[in-house]
């Protein structure tokens, strides 16, 4: 087996040094009954070429988005990945290193985390950010838990414009902590009244921008209402590219900003692994979950970086920790950071402009189709449309024509008949004008 360097003579020599007759003898503490009953009906060792063959056949059963005009979003976005980004994150020194617990020989990872924390803080408009969470949905649940710790309250109000997976993950996590999560109905029209629902029992109000149905809402007044009620405002961002074009949540009064960094961090990969972004105000630092990297100096006075404020974390605080998270999304955070660095201010804002322009181009054509109405009066690169037919059937019909034509809202809300005809459409810099024409032409036929 190519991954195992020991030869049989070496194994025997080592057993001699140990004073054991066989490897099996080293396993003598395992219960004999369990050893006897262990049978594994599994294939044997395979060569690289065989593994590649099997997995390539499996992969070929999928219709990949590069092989079809694709307009999918709903929290997971297809963007171009610079070649140098994917190369850099595959450098073995990043890819095959552990969490930087020995700072003297982990300065590369640590400095990259420090830069990542700064980038996340800058784009969200917040004061500080952590080294990453698993994904946007779990970051959202952690934000609600943190708001409960800060306010010492045990309920939360969640907007109908929050991604249903974020909402579900938050609801599931919080129910085990006896925190009541009040979720408003899905809001494709963008008309819900959150301010009227805030009560003094709420630890926080959770919203999303751009909303799940695309809307760009100004939550400044909501932020004021939250603070008046002693609650925090948690803002989710599922498409961070939008932050190159819209006012960051931190500038309208958000207390915690969480998000999914996948859209800037490489392939969609069927939705995972992603990278959870988590940013907040400095005054809430001690209640923040997750790792943090900080600046310091070494014995020679040279600047360097270490993991810091670890007393918040599980390996020190155990049951009193701010979270149980250990492994996070280090490499995906590095990919996010590398892409951001490549883009820079000019590239990031231009990428956002381009995304918006492609989406507006798509919207202008789609809204001219008979019986089709765009529900999002404002949007970034994704919007909701009301079709004259059930969206799920339309999407299936488009898939038969090898077009990945959006995500039907019914996939998330199977029990809401009023959403059956709602379709989410996204355009990014990866779409061409020809892609858009192909989709619009096919939609016209399918809807006819």
């Amino acid at each position, binding site marked *: 087996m190519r*991954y195992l360097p020991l030869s049989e003579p070496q194994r025997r020599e080592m057993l001699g040094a140990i004073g054991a007759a066989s490897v099996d003898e080293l396993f*003598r503490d395992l*219960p004999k009954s*369990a*050893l006897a*009953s262990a049978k594994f009906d*599994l*294939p044997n*060792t395979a060569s690289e070429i065989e*593994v*590649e063959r*099997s*997995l*390539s056949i499996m*992969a070929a*059963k999928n*219709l990949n988005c590069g092989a079809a005009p694709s307009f999918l979003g709903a929290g*997971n976005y297809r963007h171009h990945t*610079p070649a140098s980004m994917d190369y850099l994150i595959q450098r*073995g020194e990043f890819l095959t*290193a552990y969490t930087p617990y*020995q700072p003297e020989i982990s*300065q590369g990872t640590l*400095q990259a985390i420090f*830069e990542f924390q700064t*980038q996340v803080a800058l784009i969200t408009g917040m004061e500080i950010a952590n*080294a990453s969470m*698993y994904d946007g949905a779990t970051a959202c649940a952690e934000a609600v838990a943190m708001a409960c710790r800060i306010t010492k309250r045990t309920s939360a109000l969640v907007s109908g414009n929050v991604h249903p997976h974020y909402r*579900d993950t938050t*609801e599931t996590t919080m129910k085990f902590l006896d925190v009541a999560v009040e979720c408003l109905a899905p809001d494709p029209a963008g008309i819900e009244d959150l301010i009227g629902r805030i009560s003094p029992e709420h630890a926080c109000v959770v919203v999303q921008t751009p909303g799940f149905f695309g809307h760009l809402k100004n939550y400044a007044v909501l932020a004021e209402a939250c603070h008046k009620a002693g609650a925090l405002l948690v803002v989710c961002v599922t498409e961070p590219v939008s932050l190159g*074009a819209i006012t960051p949540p931190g500038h309208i009064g958000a207390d915690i900003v969480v998000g999914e960094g996948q859209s800037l961090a490489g*392939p969609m*990969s069927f*939705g*995972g*692994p992603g990278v959870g972004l988590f940013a907040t105000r400095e005054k809430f630092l001690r209640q923040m979950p997750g790792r*943090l990297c*900080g*600046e310091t*100096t070494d*014995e020679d006075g*040279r600047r360097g970086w*270490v993991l*810091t404020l670890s007393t918040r*974390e*599980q390996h020190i605080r*155990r049951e009193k920790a701010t979270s*149980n998270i*250990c*492994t*996070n*999304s280090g490499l995906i955070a590095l990919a996010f950071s590398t892409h951001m660095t490549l883009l820079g*201010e000019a590239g*990031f804002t231009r*990428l956002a402009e381009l995304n918006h322009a492609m989406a507006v*181009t798509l919207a202008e054509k789609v809204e001219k189709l008979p019986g089709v109405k765009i529900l999002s009066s404002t949007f970034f690169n994704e919007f909701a449309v009301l079709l004259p037919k059930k969206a799920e059937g339309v999407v299936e019909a488009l*898939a038969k024509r090898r077009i990945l034509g959006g*995500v039907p809202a019914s996939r998330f809300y199977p029990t809401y008949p009023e959403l059956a005809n709602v379709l989410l459409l996204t355009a990014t*810099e990866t779409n061409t*004008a020809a892609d858009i024409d192909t989709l619009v032409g096919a939609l016209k036929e399918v809807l006819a």
Partner: protein
Amino acid sequence: MTIPTTASGNRGLQLEQGLIFEQNTPGMSGVDLPAVPKVADRLGDMKSTKNIGLPGMSEPDVVRHYTRLSQKNYSIDSGFYPLGSCTMKHNPRLNEKMARLPGFADIHPFQPVSTIQGALELIDTCAHWLKTLTGMTAVAMSPAAGAHGELCGLMCIKSAHEANGQGHRKTILVPESAHGTNPATAALCGYAVESIPANAEGRVDVAALRAHLRPEIAAVMITNPNTCGLFERDCIAIAEAVHEAGAYFYMDGANYNAIVARLRIADLGVDAMHINLHKTFSTPHGGGGPGAGPTVLSAKLAPFAPVPMVIKVGEGFDVEEHAGHGTATQSYGRMKGYHGQFGVFVRAVSYMMAMGGDGLKQASGDAVLNANYLLARLSEELTPAFEGPCMHEAVFDDRFLKGTGVTTLDIAKALIDEGVHPPTMYFPLVVHGALLMEPTETESKATLDGFIASLLHLARKAKSGTAEAEFKAAPMLSPRRRLDETKAARKPILRWLPSSDSNGTRQAAE
């Protein structure tokens, strides 16, 4: 010999590198984008008016930046990484290549199910291997990492107790030698935590455990092999006692790599166990993640598993995405977005297929052999904390340093100068001054012998009583020497700020 001072601050191949924010060329970008079509924007009043503050750099400068940063890292690719409990084994590049196949990388979680049959098959294949290896009924694939898998297991347990009218069970028993994630997870699941002591052999004291079992106990969480690198010989008796008391047995699978393909944990009476794919199944640690923590479940807990769940329908696959519907009527809900750590599954399946059942058994055998070889050879100078044989990791205490003035930390830092990543230090907490070494199966005898030679040399040097100052000064040869963690924690600087004197301007390297 003293290290010469250079004008640049560089030391040969050790190149100093400022922050990206200190390399800003305004307006520069390392990405050229197509022209932006002219449209009337629909951003409304949320259209941004302010600069963000991101630095501008060209592509070559960015490539150089991250390449130089990478050179300040130790990694499995570059050397021996015996970090106990972390399983730093070789990460095959085939896994990376497979994860980048467009049919796996370039697919969206909400494509029509008819267009992602291969993705669902991949998840089902991973699940099949995990269920076959463990003998368990079901596996929840969505947990994102080990701690998340623990949470999944405890959520299933709590849901099962509530469904059976046992909601009054509010406490989880955890050995005092456990990883911090166990008590932290229990708390996150709304449970109180009670610690059970270990015996002198470094194992769970079954009598003490029995004394703690009462009607309020919801579950026992036991890492097996445990954090001292020892197999819990009495685990079947433990499982029986736990079940007799109406509680569930959660086995923490952090060290599953030691026993994979040797026994089925179902035969130990386990109700739930997470499996770190980034440990046992070789997916890269990536400087802190991502991992994946699929959680295998017994028949009693399987109905409560979280969504999504891949289901076989005839020759094809479907996915149940909603708790309370279809095959997920009793599911406790969703704990992560989308379909779990799919890209990690691809890498793990690539590894499973490459190893095969026979290769996995050889791997656990070699991992245990390597650890016992370290235990035997290092006992010449070091003091083992427990009697062997150990499983996949060997733990030493600091008795061998008594009276030398040299500490476990000093030995670890001196190992850095020897070109080795130090073992885990001061964990498990039940071992004084612990050095926990996990060599893994992917290290050659020559590598182990080199490490043994270095460590024996350091142990003798420490015992000589003449080298305390030298140890305290280590490491001398790494990109940075010991860093001031007290300073970092007292006045935290967690981001770059443009105006601050301490970090706003590019510092001249010293």
